[in-house]
């Protein structure tokens, strides 16, 4: 189960502070895009938008990206 958008790991993820080895190619590309955008515009408003985007990506790919979700959230995503 995907943790809520208020979970602190979401912010760490989009800000590039979470060093995770991803499995799915789409995740690797997606994370590169959002972390790049967070570097360019680190305002709270933009980070919230990127968390929204990240949540949407993993929600749509919850089954296929299960390994990546677990790598990010650990046991909390089970």
């Amino acid at each position, binding site marked *: 189960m995907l943790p809520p958008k208020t979970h602190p790991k979401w912010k760490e993820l989009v800000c590039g502070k979470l060093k995770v*080895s*991803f499995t799915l*190619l*789409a995740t*690797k590309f997606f994370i*590169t*895009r959002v972390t790049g955008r967070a570097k360019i515009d680190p305002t709270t408003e933009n980070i919230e938008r990127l968390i929204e985007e990240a949540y949407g990506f993993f929600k749509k790919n919850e089954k296929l990206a299960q390994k990546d979700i677990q790598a990010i959230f650990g046991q909390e995503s089970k």
Partner: protein
Amino acid sequence: MRAMLSVEEVKALLNTGKRLLLSGDEDLLRQLPRGQWVGGTTPYFIGEKGGVMTRAKIFANVLPPEVVSFETRFYSESQLPGIVADEPCHGFSFVIIPAFTRTHQSFAENVQSYPCIFDRPLVGWIAGVALEEIGKRKAKVVDGQTGRWSDNNAICLHAGLSENIAAEVGIVNPFIQGAGDTITVDRPGFRFREAHVNGVSVNLAEYFLSQGIDHRLPLVANYSGAMVNVSIKSIDQAAKRVAFYAPLFPHIDYRLAVPVEDYQAAFTREFNKICADPTLSMNCILNFIYGDLEGKRIGDFMGPITFGEIAYGLLNQTLVYMVLRKT
């Protein structure tokens, strides 16, 4: 099923209602009847007997029964961002774009900024022509359902899948970043005079020439663990300009790749790690040429040799594949 087939064999498959993804010489594809197929031009393949250039056979991917819907549409340059909205909620999209067109360039430069582009599987390739015909003949794509051809627009298949099946797009890339200088750019683009090397502004052509770099090696970027190549097209000493086969992007660190001594062995080793039988796959014309792959197999890979590979974005010197997995 995937195989190199004669026109008559492809016709037979279409007559039985099979849905096909086809690649081949334009003259062969034009002999096919209308049906549930999309295609693009290339005379290069890796088939049962290894790498080959042929105008006598078509490469066919037969889509499995898990593909439950088959919608096709052309996209002009300005319509390209609409691909995302047309993607099936549960399935994959397969796109072929004619090489060296504005559609090709626009897709390459902008696709990564399309909203939600990574949410659904997008895979495909860039159509081309025989190397000796570049500039004389145009790469083309075709919608087999309507018989409509295009030498400018992209053809896209939006395929729905059974509920318990998901499409996963992956890449096989034997290149990794070398330990050398870091190259960055200020804008997206295929051609550059100025770039930054370790943060210092340089003329990129002069830098490459002074370093004596092997132009067959791509620049490699690390996308959160995925190695993404950008191949060098030309280094123009007079114009002091470097052209690439895919765009470089700002805020991305590029390094020249570590040389691959034996392409066949390297691709075979990496391809065998997939641990699944890809529904479709394609490899790059530059790997075919630089790796001297004529007559050679790379593991169980079979597919068209293409002028750019698409896995969400445009890639170079990369093998792209898609597998269907039970969820």
